[in-house]
């Protein structure tokens, strides 16, 4: 048994996958672990993230399985699940075992396999949450015209959200704050549509982010809020009222940061 201990980052997990192949380990006897739990009779390797190696894995995954499946893998790796690295590793191994070209767009087709199924489920639930947040995220305008949004996603979705909104608002300065993780994505209008950075992290850095965004709201912000509340109040048809359906489609935990509730 070979245990590769990774950090919970895309780079670290991809580096581990590269090293399994590089060091010619028997694929079935490898475990990618994100926890610190010791295992009996196992040879342990500490993985340090390596840009070159992980980059190679990214290129291979894109070439062999296509962008869509690569994106799914990234979604699966945003989940808060200690076994996600192993599930993704097994999925990739089963895909790479196919001959060149046979796995294109088909990485997640072998759902009969428990590990593939697990990776697929993680990816699907992260993807769904991302779709929800793309709709349910609410920005508020700060004094100098910048936009600020808060969210507490279950999965670590900030990179996906930033990409979506950077494409949508190329001419805005905005900041999305992941309150639970203490990180934030910042987009500047001067730097073009694709330019954004992630800041913050665990502990002090995260606290600094929270402190930094305590700015005053712009003058018109409250006015537009009340307009939108009025709109949401009027648009429902009273004769069709169905609160249970509303709660099904828009679960309560999203409503914490939403303007209209």
């Amino acid at each position: 048994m070979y245990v590769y201990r990774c950090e919970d980052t895309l780079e670290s997990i991809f580096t581990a996958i590269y090293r399994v192949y590089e060091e010619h380990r028997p694929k079935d006897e490898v475990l990618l672990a994100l926890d610190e739990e010791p295992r009996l009779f196992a040879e342990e390797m500490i993985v340090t993230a390596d840009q070159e190696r992980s980059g190679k894995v990214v290129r291979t995954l894109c070439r062999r399985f296509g962008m869509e499946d690569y994106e799914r893998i990234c979604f699966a790796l945003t989940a808060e699940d200690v076994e996600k690295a192993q599930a993704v590793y097994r999925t990739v191994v089963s895909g790479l075992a196919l001959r060149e070209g046979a796995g294109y767009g088909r990485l997640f087709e072998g759902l009969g396999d428990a590990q593939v199924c697990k990776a697929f489920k993680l990816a699907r639930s992260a993807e769904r949450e991302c779709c929800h947040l793309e709709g349910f995220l609410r920005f508020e305008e700060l004094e100098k015209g910048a936009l600020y949004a808060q969210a507490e996603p279950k999965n670590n979705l900030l990179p996906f959200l930033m990409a979506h909104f950077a494409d949508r608002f190329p001419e805005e300065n905005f900041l999305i704050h992941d309150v639970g993780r203490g990180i934030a994505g910042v987009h500047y209008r001067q730097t073009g549509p694709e330019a954004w950075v992630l800041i913050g992290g665990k502990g002090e850095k995260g606290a600094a982010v929270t402190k930094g965004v305590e700015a005053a709201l712009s003058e018109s912000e409250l006015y537009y809020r009340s307009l939108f509340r009025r709109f949401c109040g009027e648009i429902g048809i009273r004769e069709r009222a169905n609160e249970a359906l509303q709660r099904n489609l828009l679960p309560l935990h999203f409503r914490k940061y939403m303007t209209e509730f």
Partner: protein
Amino acid sequence: MAEVGKMSVMEKLKILTDAAKYDVACTSSGVDRRGKAGKLGNCVAAGICHSFAGDGRCISLLKILLTNECIYDCKYCLNRRSNDVPRAMFTPEEICELTIQFYRRNYIEGLFLSSGIVQSPTFTMELICRTIYLLRTKYGFNGYIHVKAIPGADGEVIRQTGFLVDRMSVNLELPTADGLRNLAPNKHRKNILAPMRQIQNGITQNRSEVAVYRHAPAFVSGGQSTQMIVGATNENDYQILNVAESLYQKFELKRVFYSAFVRVNEDKSLPVLPGGPPLLREHRLYQADWLLRFYGFRAQELLSERRPFFNVMLDPKEDWAVGHLEEFPVEINRAPYEKLLRVPGIGVQSARRIVAARRSCNLDFENLKKLGVVLKRALYFITCSGKMMYPTKLEEDYIVRQLTEKEQRIRFGSDGMTYRQMSLFDDAGFAGNAEVISAQEKWQTAMGQL
């Protein structure tokens, strides 16, 4: 008009949202457009829902009327000429400002603009066109826009508007020409179908233009849709479904929406609905609509002249399946995709996954559950490697009893469908109270398609 001028945006928004809410179409799908430097917004093909209203319908677009003044007198409509309701009118700048500010805060996915008829259809259409032009050019809005084409408006204005918007729709209002004559004396079937045909032709032509010149301006790239009111006149489900089918086939519509009739006016020609709007009927129509578009069913398979209404207890697919037991059971590991689609409890997604997953291994019931098949409905109709999940009989009465008993539990239980909604089917011409209906229906379904 002088009074209208003094009104605040807040009041206008209240009046014109209230007037627009009976319009159903609120999808923001069908267009994939990336953001542009210097502009605001992009479009996502799947559409994005930004919120959900108290009635459970999605809020995706800023759904408002340009004005609720109207020269027409349609009997079902709140904004008809003869109603004494507060009237308001937005200026184009107000609409643009609202759209931009809401969009920046991620409240909405775009704008849905409809209008009452002021002066003439062409004049109204010009007002809409001017507003959208302003929004697209001066305000640099690159998000989703859906507008209503006004029946009877000049073709050229509709064409120009088509190049600015993502989706256009013309409301069919009522499924048959007779119904339209009775309830909307100022509207004519011919006038409604003419712009629909024009938009269809425009889209077809545009498709070949874009094929040659990649940067040719797009015309209504999200396709067109329409909506029908269900339950205001006495058409049956079979007629409505046939109309929908021919709209999909002959006019290449993206969507047909059904809206359960809500009685907002007191009028002797409108039906009285003691149980509220016919929501269950609307629900069944949507289910059948999906079967037409994604499952390869035809309207004639689901209903017939002799059996013109949907079953209250079973959904249209279950209803079809128990009537065609000679097609079942279906072997999961071998049946073609089209056959899998016809099994109750298997949807498009799970059918695709089954076809993909069975390439690498033989599937059993445990796998099916993971793939997303609803086994409690599917188990009567499928086998895995020749075995059924439980020993079940392939008999109509037995299966109907099993399916409906479970249905009962679900419907009267936890998920919000209430007992009251069952009685909504009354207005479709069934007599008696709900209890009698369901017992009678149950008996009917148990006895087959009497």
